[in-house]
């Protein structure tokens, strides 16, 4: 029988040793719903959200739904933490703040995350999201998460 914590360790092993992130993404039903893909790019975890019409907010431009851009970035931070740390559950969100810089054109979104501070209970993360040019982010965000208290 597969226990929940072994599902997490299996998913992490698959990601760390084989570069297959699908089991990790699959443990977050909403990330799977969005269609998030994870990959390693120049030694860093990078998330991609392939464009599809069902994720459009404003059909006139058309542009990504701003809430989806934010949701993609929040889940980028969650997946980054799950991969970097040995959490056996999804960290709890404390807060999240996003600044929108450019409208999201109908192309794939990319995001990466860095941990600015890692305490024993709280992690502070910074997330960047871009489309064709990583040097021109369409949004930047920060978020705090509550980690599992170690035994």
């Amino acid at each position, binding site marked *: 029988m597969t226990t929940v914590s072994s599902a997490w360790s299996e998913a992490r092993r698959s990601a760390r040793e084989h570069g297959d992130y699908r089991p990790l993404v699959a443990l977050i039903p*909403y990330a799977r719903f969005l269609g998030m893909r994870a990959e390693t790019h120049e030694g860093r975890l990078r998330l991609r959200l392939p464009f599809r019409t*069902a*994720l459009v907010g404003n059909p006139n431009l058309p542009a990504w739904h701003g809430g989806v851009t*934010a949701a993609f970035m929040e*889940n980028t931070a969650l997946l980054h933490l799950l991969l970097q740390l040995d959490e056996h559950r999804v960290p709890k969100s404390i807060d999240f703040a996003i600044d*929108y810089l450019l409208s999201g054109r109908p192309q794939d979104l990319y995001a990466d995350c860095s941990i600015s501070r890692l305490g024993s209970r709280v992690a502070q993360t910074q997330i960047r999201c871009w489309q064709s040019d990583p040097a021109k982010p369409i949004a930047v965000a920060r978020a705090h998460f509550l980690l599992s208290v170690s035994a």
Partner: protein
Amino acid sequence: MNPTPFHELLRRDFLELSPHMRECGLRATAVDAHGALVTLPYREDWLGDSESGRLNPGIITVLVDSCAGLAVLASIGAREPVATLDLRMDYLRPAFRGGDVQCRASCLRLTASIAFVRATVWQEREDEPFATAQLVFMRTAAARPPTGAAA
């Protein structure tokens, strides 16, 4: 304040015109000059973690951004393009599987170019919100006056 025919039209059409809001099944239940009330029907896709049964923060951000955008147009009293400049979420307590999610957003102040919005999100009781949010929108049409117009 009683809804005007414009508010009733917004309530019926606004969410329906956006592919992603339609995809999520968002329903506007009340719209007037004070703000908007939007319901997100529960789905297993919204989970952040199947084991704990907590909702993912991302789908809550989608709900909040949608409801706040609706509140801005309701406050303006006309359809015009607006863009989210920033959004901040505070997750006061977890939200759990099974219950529909409600969001109420109101526009605190509307200027010629900016709208300030506050929102609360709950499942069972409005007086026990599980998240609160603050957003700022830009009225993008107002940012580009027609050639020759006074600023």
